[in-house]
């Protein structure tokens, strides 16, 4: 029996779709985004702003090379976090803490740079590899806190991962207002600027190219992990059913801890891409919510690593467009966040329409 809703026009029936093609799924996602822009357009009209001009600014971002490069730069932390979330979500581990894990990655990267600059540790060429490793470890450890609580004490992961975001942001605030403040920075809460060999500008002087390579490499690694290795398989089994996993002799708590560590680690590397790819130093509020945007990206891409790379660039473009909207039309920066949220909500409605169909039975009454 399916769900029926009585309306004046007859009975509205919601029926499960037995199957749908990949084309249909893609069409639905694109339709959701188009609808979201329609909704945003209506809001802009109500607020007395010109929607055509706003949209041409937004879509202009993807065709103008310098803005496209900026969008790719902005997409790196989103992409790396979303790849991590993909692992966690496949495990049915609701990691909402990518934002905090990004900040921990930034702290680790900055820590390595400061050790080098203040105390003369390491040689210049060692910096980037060390930053990569340490940001992965610290980001992973931050997520592992919750992974441990879930695995060993069965604490639900949603709220702890969220809370740790706020804590991580405060740790960065503490560091840049205190011990890590640039002594020559006129008292501003900023770390020193990274030396050029600690920045992701190895190719053509823009961090977009190196960053994109990093994203693609990470996507490939996640793809191989999930499709061709034993831990990846175990992560998926735990996500499908904890009981089946136990029955198959999989150590569920071990898998949860490994999966959460990898998930946080990827976001941690995303933190590295912020400080050494986008800003070049550590400062408060370094992430405008990349970790939350990553949740939208992971859902829209259906947790597929390759689609995550592409979808991130779309959202990186939205962030870039936010700046243009503010400068040219005086639309506040929070508009980007609003657009993202509306896209997110409509994507979810699209998910529903993919799985179910609505049938209106005219003239039937019961």
């Amino acid at each position, binding site marked *: *029996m*399916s*769900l029926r*809703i009585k309306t004046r026009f007859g009975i509205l029936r*919601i029926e*499960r779709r037995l199957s749908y093609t990949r084309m249909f799924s893609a069409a639905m996602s694109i339709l959701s985004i188009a609808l979201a822009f329609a909704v945003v357009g209506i809001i802009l009209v109500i*607020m*007395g702003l010109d929607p055509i001009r706003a949209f041409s600014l937004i879509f202009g971002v993807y065709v103008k090379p310098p803005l496209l490069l900026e969008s790719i730069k902005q997409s790196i932390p989103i992409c790396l976090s979303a790849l991590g979330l993909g692992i966690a979500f496949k495990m049915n581990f*609701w990691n*909402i803490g990518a934002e905090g894990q990004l900040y921990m990655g930034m702290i680790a990267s900055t820590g390595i740079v400061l050790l080098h600059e203040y105390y003369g540790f390491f040689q210049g060429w060692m910096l980037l590899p060390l930053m990569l490793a340490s940001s992965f470890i610290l980001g992973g450890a931050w997520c592992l806190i919750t992974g441990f*609580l879930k695995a060993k*004490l*069965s*604490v*639900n992961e*949603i*709220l*702890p991962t*969220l*809370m*740790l*975001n*706020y*804590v991580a942001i*405060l*740790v960065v*605030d*503490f560091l840049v*207002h*205190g011990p890590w403040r640039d002594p020559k920075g006129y008292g501003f809460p900023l770390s020193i600027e990274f030396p050029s060999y600690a920045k992701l500008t190895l190719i053509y002087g823009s961090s977009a190219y190196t960053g994109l390579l990093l994203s693609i490499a990470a996507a490939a690694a996640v793809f191989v992990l999930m499709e061709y290795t034993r831990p990846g398989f175990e992560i998926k089994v735990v996500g499908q059913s904890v009981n089946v996993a136990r029955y198959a002799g999989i150590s569920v708590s071990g898998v949860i801890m490994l999966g959460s560590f990898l998930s946080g680690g990827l976001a941690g590397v995303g933190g590295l891409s912020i400080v050494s790819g986008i800003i070049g130093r550590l400062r408060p509020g370094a992430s405008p919510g990349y970790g*939350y945007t990553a*949740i*939208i990206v992971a*859902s829209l891409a259906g947790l597929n690593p390759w689609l995550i790379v592409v979808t991130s660039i779309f959202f990186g473009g939205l962030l870039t467009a936010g700046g243009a909207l503010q400068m040219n039309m*005086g*639309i*506040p*920066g*929070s*508009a*980007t*966040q*609003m*657009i*993202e*949220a*509306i896209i*997110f*909500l409509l994507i*979810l*409605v699209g*998910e*529903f329409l993919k799985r*179910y169909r609505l049938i209106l039975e005219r003239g039937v009454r019961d």
Partner: protein
Amino acid sequence: MIEWIESVLRLTIQVGTIYLLASLGEIYAERSGILNLGLEGIMIMGAALSFIFTLAYGHLAAILISIIVGVLMSLILAVMSVHMRLNQVVTGLALTMLGLGLSGFIASPEIRRGILLTLNPSLPENLLTTQEAPKLPEAPIPLLSEIPILGGSFFNQNVLVYVSYVAAPLMWFILFKTRFGLSLRSVGENPAAADALGVNVYLVRYLATMISGGFAGLAGAYLFLGFQPFWQEGLTAGKGFIALSLVILSTWNPLRAILGAYLFGGVETLQYRLQLFGLGAQSPYILAMLPYLVAIITLVLISYENIRKRIGVPASLGIPYSREE
């Protein structure tokens, strides 16, 4: 000394009321099986709307509109999680993001000016640009407010604090002593059985979710008008999520939520007081972590407790119901 105790207690209640109001409604939603993770977003919308509508029409209109918009926002969540059976975690997060984005948008100086002029064209220029709104006045209760220590702290507050005193026992009574409360709890425990007994599962879940939205809107209005009446983007700073952990700490019981709310109120008050003493003058940021860390610790303790006693969690929390399955 007495004055010091009184002021600490008073601030504890003022902060605790934010959490109490938000968690009272959420208890209903979760008892019916719906996790409303949109609490944070609804609260900040309530705060932003209180800001704008207080300037345009005054306190009462602001509080009412916050509640109404809270109910409407939670209706989105209800449709998506009850009828569309979508994942409640993701849906709630989407709602929170919407609240954070939309509140920042409507309360930003550029957009707010236009909204205020549409609502009330005769507003003077200084009200169009201010970041503040008049705070809710204190309304000492005659006689009761004369009691030493307790009077000054409990009964010399604003109206919304008194609303929370009445609402908590009332919500407890409805939940545990009325037919509606029984239906609501049964829907959260075993919707199929409730359905078989003639309870309209969908209707109850819609109502419970809307109640949670209304209270979250009210909590946002109180946060702004009764506690911190100057606008800042992201002003709730995770308070909605702390309220969510408080719901778990209270084991879904409105009366226990009072204790939990004042516990978190106390933690935050402690944070402000320690700052005054010069403790952490260099690092207010470390002290500011306290509420979040306490929330995590309570979640750990309560989950341990829950395993031991097997009490608490509504059995169908987060699981969509459909007759066909």
